[in-house]
């Protein structure tokens, strides 16, 4: 009898959990989509990325005789550098706005399992970033495909037309989409820890943009290489490389994995902090 009850409970538990998880997810999705700025920010990810990429492509020149060495795929995806800032904003606002208005207490009252809330929010954020990132990357590559040959990057100069059929280009494209999603998760995790919106945006943008700049000016090659290998975005951006692979400080997928580890660490730390701290 007792055994049967236990078995029955065991049987219903996973289903109940799953349903509860879905409910939390749905609640978070409702919250996000009912804020007007979400739509604007998601659109801005795609627009800014494609705009910056297009501007870069338009100004890139391969003049005859100068032996241009550009990586046309990476060049076409330059806009990701700017687009990630909008991803960061979206990630920061996804949670800091709840803290600044005190709504976080309402959220935790309605859904006391904080880890679950965090997971749901992270899922919703990724669900928003991924489609925007796909459009951003596709638009950028399309712009590169259309405009690059006109600027001297022709097959005659050793630059075939950009195409996803080309393995490294496909890797760069898929990698860039994942890169943006991971940047979003990293920023989200950091924001959970920092809470205050202004401090959070400063911290995450610093984390994104400063290591590459530090790497530029550090005179020690050892430290330069360390930064390029282990800083989240420096490492993550290597996934865009399609040429000169032997000179990379870290392999393309390895670099993305470094970023993924950063994101995971930030999320786990955020989750622990969330559990230990009063809302």
């Amino acid at each position: 009898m007792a055994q049967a009850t236990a078995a029955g409970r065991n049987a219903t538990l996973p289903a109940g959990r799953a349903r509860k998880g879905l409910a939390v997810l749905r609640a978070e999705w409702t919250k996000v989509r009912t804020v007007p700025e979400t739509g604007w920010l998601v659109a801005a990810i795609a627009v800014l990325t494609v705009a910056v990429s297009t501007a870069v492509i338009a100004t890139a020149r391969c003049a005859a005789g100068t032996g241009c060495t550009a990586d046309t795929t990476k060049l076409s995806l330059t806009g990701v550098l700017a687009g990630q800032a909008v991803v960061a904003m979206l990630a920061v606002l996804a949670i800091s706005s709840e803290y600044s208005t005190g709504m976080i207490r309402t959220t935790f009252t309605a859904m006391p399992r904080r880890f679950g809330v965090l997971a749901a929010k992270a899922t919703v954020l990724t669900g928003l970033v991924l489609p925007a990132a796909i459009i951003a990357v596709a638009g950028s590559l399309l712009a590169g495909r259309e405009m690059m040959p006109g600027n001297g990057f022709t097959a005659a100069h050793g630059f075939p037309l950009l195409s996803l059929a080309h393995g490294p280009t496909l890797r760069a494209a898929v990698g860039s989409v994942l890169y943006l999603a991971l940047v979003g998760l990293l920023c989200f995790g950091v924001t959970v820890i920092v809470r205050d919106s202004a401090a959070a945006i400063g911290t995450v943008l610093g984390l994104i943009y400063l290591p590459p700049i530090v790497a530029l000016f550090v005179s020690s090659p050892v430290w330069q290489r360390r930064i390029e290998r282990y800083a989240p975005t420096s490492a993550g951006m290597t996934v865009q490389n399609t040429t000169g692979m032997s000179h990379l400080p870290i392999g393309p997928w390895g670099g993305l994995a470094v970023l993924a580890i950063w994101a995971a660490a930030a999320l786990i730390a955020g989750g622990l902090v969330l559990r230990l701290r009063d809302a």
Partner: protein
Amino acid sequence: MTTIAPYRAPQQAGQDGFWQLAHAEWTKFRTVRGWLIAAIFAMVLIDGLGLALVDAGGGVGGGCRASCAAAVPTGPSGEAVLDSFYYVRQPLSADGSLTVRVTSLTGEYQPQGGYVGPHTPSGLASKLVPWAKAGIVIQQSSKPGSAYAAMMVTGQHGVRMQYDYTGDIAGLPGQVSAASPRWLRLTRSGDTIIGYDSADGRHWIKVSSVQLPGLPKTVLAGMFATSPLYFQGNFPSYAQSGGGTSPSRATGVFDNVSLLGGRPGGAWTGEFVGSSERMDSMPGIGFHQAGGRFTITGTGDIAPIVGGGTNTNFVTGTIADHLVAVIFGLLVLAVIGAMFITTEYRRGMIRVTLTASPRRGRMLAAKAVVIGLVCFVLGLPTAALAVIAGSAISRSRGIYILPVSWLTQVQVIVGVAALLAVAAVLAMAVGTILRRSVVAVATVIVMFLVPYVLGDTSVLGSPALSEWMFRVTPVAAFAIQQSVPAYAQVAGQYGPPEYFALAPWAGLAVLCAYAAVALALATYLLRRRDA
């Protein structure tokens, strides 16, 4: 019912002019301890990181150390110069003229690249570098850095008249060959030296006339050949730029040599001028005379030293090298600048502010003056420390700091403080326009960081685009850090952090224009919007 007399305050002291508003804004700023601490932190970041970062690896990678830097000559106007070439000359007393015909200029370089020591094997590859030079020169003395004027043929830039290291005037275009020789002539008359060139030795064209004040009665006149380090651009990153230079040599063939005037020596003697180490590393330096025909092979350069180490085989630096962390401090100040106003919006305090000072434009101006002055006043000693202490640290590590005038030092120090101040004002204006902290802070950071990152040629591999970033975006203001001029007659990596697309003050003006436009828009919106 009793009627009560309307209240009149007993004393009506005080004023509400601009000064009072600025005083109020300053009180606001200083009484939020976090802002003051963050502003000071920004300064510590600039100096701490700036002084630590650049020396993280000990700086000098090899080659020659202090001894090498100590021997760097300076030209007549104080700039560091290279004065290294093979010279076949004799004294010329009083006025006179020197005429030659150059029939050939060829060159080679050592493809190994890098810092080449004296024992490097000499596998040379044929390459005439663009600024390889062969020609005639009248020189004050054989002392390095002395005044001179020269006519020369070059690798790719035609005939040039150059003088006192920085002067460069174009003559006949085209490359020299046996079929298309170049005739060169220098005439001296007192302190005045006139350069002529000709394609046939009959029709002479005056290139220019230059003054070399204080030229002694007896000068040196002769033929020379030299060839600068072969610089190949397109590096993956600045940090490796030192490795992109290779020693090279050039050989010029001269005939129809005629020196008119007082010739106390009477015979041509050859001599390598400059560092002997340099000569040893490159085989075949010297001259060969057969009848009236001189074949001279030289290496080195007669030119100013440029930043970035692209034309020297020792490590050079500029006074601004330790300002690399200015961008970090700038970001912190920009965040403070934006939050100086967005926090008022967040709490509704803007209404209290505008109730106390209903002249909204004036209130915004007071805020801008306060945040700008705070950043300027904090930035001044910070920049001075980075420049003065930074240069001293570099020197102690054997890095040769390119000498600059005190005015240039002032430009860099005051300019960096102004850059920080104007950036904070721009951030404050953006904060006023956008009102929300997150959006404003993100916008300001992106405004500075994205162009800064894209401005690095290694990111885009497109120098033209990088140049545009430092031309039209707010980071153009970093041009104020440029302490040494770029020279068209020296091949180099004229990019950040040593060189910028715009002139120093023009770059700062770009940022000022951004700040002015943002402030104007902010004022317009602040006046028009309900608070």
